């Protein structure tokens, strides 16, 4: 029944004397759910690591007087969900000593739900700043919050940053407010001269309470919220949320709608990659690249506006399908555009590749070794630039990607140049995918009405957003309202990579390192 990777995990658990329940592939397809008892939570992770499984996500859901906990693991497209239950005061063995990526998500779960972890390497608060108190937990059902009663939130203070002492060591605090129009986040550098010894991130400044806001929503309104988790990934996040809802209710989406969703997702990817390569050029003072690529991005998003009615195609993916349609003239014009853009982008990219001064700045800068990438379980273009070819569209294809042919570019250099190159390659791949999709748009409706939910159900959406794998969990009660929503943006796995890759670089190279990773603040802060 179970997939091979999962069977070998179950066997390994048996060898290690870890009692696991019967694998269940019906609850959260395409993943296989394996119940584990709470005391074995960490040891199960150790076995998983031994089997070479990648750690993807962790979240908890309050159920009556206890918590239900989920951990998602993956190997070669086989997804596995470890599931357990703990009582309210019962601590859980942390998985962070085994999978460092678990650290922040566990701290996030502690700040929002009050789950205690034993053996956690870092027990400092993470998402909580000053908006709620230490012993308040916003995601618990008994937490009733009215912001108007609270007044203005105090500035965050007294966060215990890692300290470095020594002759010539200086601390450089940067942010949370930056000079450019970017999101807020605080970076604490320890440097000797211009060399970075250590970087510590402090995020959470754009915590919007997405998970709390989701509770009690209807599917339609949940997907609108999901589209706002991170504005630049609005299509992928809405798609992931829709996929979770549709899988929960075993709803069959019309093929035309799936095709349109993929068209929009690829357009999102192309637009963001164009902008990112331009921004990387800008951060090393190479204005030519920035302006040319920004121009290409702008014309591209304007087409999106003309055809889909929104530059970022926000709220176009809805439960049951999509809220817009395209005609044959628009298909022709998009194919034309994709072909023209392929040519133009290739031309500019080849100019960038032949610029020695640019090469000098980007190569060897901000190197994330394949070993580090494996350890952190990095996904998306950051992972693919460091030898990890994780791509959901390829590894666990969801419709319509199951009928498409494309290559997943992978490099091992792991530097800024490799991350820029991956993006350039993916622009080509995505434009080619766009042409494939546009030339085979199925006939039929673009939306079918999403059914009323009669029983409590849950679903898992796994979509390859432009930044990487988005994993969205949705739980509905028997009235069809949301009781739990957790979108795991790839940024959760990318931010820790930035801390590592900037070490031993010089302070003035941090902006370009940061841009080459371009993790989302909003998607991470939730």
């Amino acid at each position, binding site marked *: 029944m179970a997939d091979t990777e999962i069977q070998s995990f179950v066997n390994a658990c048996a060898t290690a004397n870890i009692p696991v329940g019967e694998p269940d592939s019906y609850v959260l397809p395409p993943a296989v759910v394996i119940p584990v008892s709470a005391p074995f939570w960490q040891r199960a992770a150790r076995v998983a690591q031994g089997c070479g499984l990648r750690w993807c996500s962790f979240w908890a859901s309050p159920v009556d007087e206890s918590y239900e906990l989920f951990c998602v693991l993956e190997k070669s497209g086989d997804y596995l969900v470890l599931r357990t239950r703990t009582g309210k005061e019962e601590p859980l063995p942390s998985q962070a000593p085994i999978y460092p990526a678990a650290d922040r998500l566990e701290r996030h779960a502690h700040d929002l739900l009050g789950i205690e972890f034993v053996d956690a390497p870092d027990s400092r608060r993470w998402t909580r700043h000053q908006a709620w108190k230490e012993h308040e937990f916003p995601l618990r059902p008994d937490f009733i919050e009215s912001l108007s009663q609270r007044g203005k939130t105090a500035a965050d203070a007294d966060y215990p940053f890692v300290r470095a002492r020594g002759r010539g060591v200086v601390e450089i605090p*940067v942010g949370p407010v930056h000079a450019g129009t970017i999101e807020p986040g605080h970076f604490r550098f320890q440097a000797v001269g211009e060399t970075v010894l250590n970087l510590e991130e402090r995020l959470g400044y754009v915590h919007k309470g997405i998970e709390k806001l989701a509770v009690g929503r209807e599917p339609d309104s949940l997907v609108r919220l999901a589209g706002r988790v991170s504005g630049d990934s609005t299509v992928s996040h809405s798609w992931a949320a829709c996929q979770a809802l549709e899988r929960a209710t075993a709803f069959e989406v019309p093929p035309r709608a799936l095709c349109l969703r993929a068209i929009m997702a690829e357009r999102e990817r192309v637009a963001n990659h164009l902008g990112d390569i331009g921004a990387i050029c800008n951060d090393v003072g190479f204005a030519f690249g920035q302006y040319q690529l920004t121009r290409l991005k702008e014309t591209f998003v304007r087409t999106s506006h003309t055809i889909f009615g929104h530059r970022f195609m926000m709220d176009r993916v809805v439960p049951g399908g999509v809220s817009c349609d395209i005609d044959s003239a628009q298909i022709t014009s998009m194919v034309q555009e994709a072909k023209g853009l392929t040519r133009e982008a290739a031309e500019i990219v080849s100019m960038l590749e032949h610029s020695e001064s640019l090469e000098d700045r980007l190569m060897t800068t901000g190197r994330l070794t394949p070993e580090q990438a494996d350890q952190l379980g990095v996904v998306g273009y950051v992972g693919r630039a460091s030898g990890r070819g994780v791509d959901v569209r390829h590894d666990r294809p969801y419709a319509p990607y199951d009928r498409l042919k494309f290559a997943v570019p992978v490099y091992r250099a792991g530097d800024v140049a490799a991350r820029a190159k991956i993006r350039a390659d993916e622009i080509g791949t995505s434009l080619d995918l766009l042409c494939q999709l546009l030339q085979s748009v199925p006939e039929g409706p673009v939306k079918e009405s999403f059914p009323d939910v009669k029983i409590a159900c849950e679903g898992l959406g796994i979509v390859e957003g432009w930044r990487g794998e988005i994993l969205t969990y949705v739980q509905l009660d028997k009235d069809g309202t949301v009781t739990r929503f957790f979108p795991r943006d790839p940024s959760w796995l990318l931010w820790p990579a930035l801390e590592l890759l900037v070490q031993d670089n*010089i302070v003035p190279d941090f902006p370009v390192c940061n841009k080459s990773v371009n993790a989302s603040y909003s998607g991470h802060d939730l």
Partner: protein
Amino acid sequence: MVDLVNVLEWVFALLQMALFVVAAPLFTAWIKRVKCWLQNRRSPPLSQPYRDLRRLFSKQVLLAHTASPLFRTAPYLVFGTTVIAAAVVPLIALELPTARIADAIVLVGLFGLGRFFLALAGLDVGTTFGGMGASREMTVGALAEPAMLMVIFALAMGAASTNLSTVIHSMLAQGLALRPSLLFAFLALLLVGIAETGRVPVDNPATHLELTMIHEAMILEYTGRQLALMEWAAQLKLMIYGVLVCNLFFPWGIAQTLDPASLLIAGGLLSVKLIILGAVLAVAEGLVAKMRFFKVPVFLAVAFTLALVGMLSFVMLESAS
């Protein structure tokens, strides 16, 4: 009668200095315009730097509560030293009373003085970026100043003087001749000028990334008229280097007497030279990315070596003739 001529000459020297100061923003605007053209963008009008200065002058000054009197006086000192430096450099006429103090070593000293106060002001408020900018500026300065002095010595060997007017006179007297020492000194001065005026690839005047800044980091905390003076001083410094390049190596056309006709010709020709130089600079900046900060010493070492080679080639090839 002699006195009257003398007074007139002084008046003209002051006018020339004023022209220098007033024209400086225009040179910056011109470079920006060419860059915009190269990037397929519409450029702001040439009057934009003037509008910016006017806007800043009419704005309120905000001071950090940690700012000392030094922070408040630094803009005037930086602007003042740069204006005096402008007075030292012959713009369109040579035979001026200021020629007596037109010494290149004085010029380097004035720039050094301005840099000293600029860096102190960057440190004064105690912010991260100001300190980083000051540290980087001193690193650049410590390497750029010796290179600049070497350029001057290479030129001075031909003229047997470090006086800028004398150097230009001797250039004019020798006529158009390709001399290796001049070629090397010219290249060295270009490199030093790029580093000293904070242009790409050493610094990026257009960046908003605090962590990468040099000059902009030091003046981040300035507002209103103080910021205006700092900006203007930077524009003036760029103009001074531009004029140095034009007048030291291509002095033909500069007025040797103070009659209106030759002054007009001198002004016109200098404008043409600056327009060409600005365009060349903009094109060069468009072609390269900013270099890594730790490559700047190498860049300036190249400038130093070029100047040194210039000097040696003068000794070996030219002094005998």
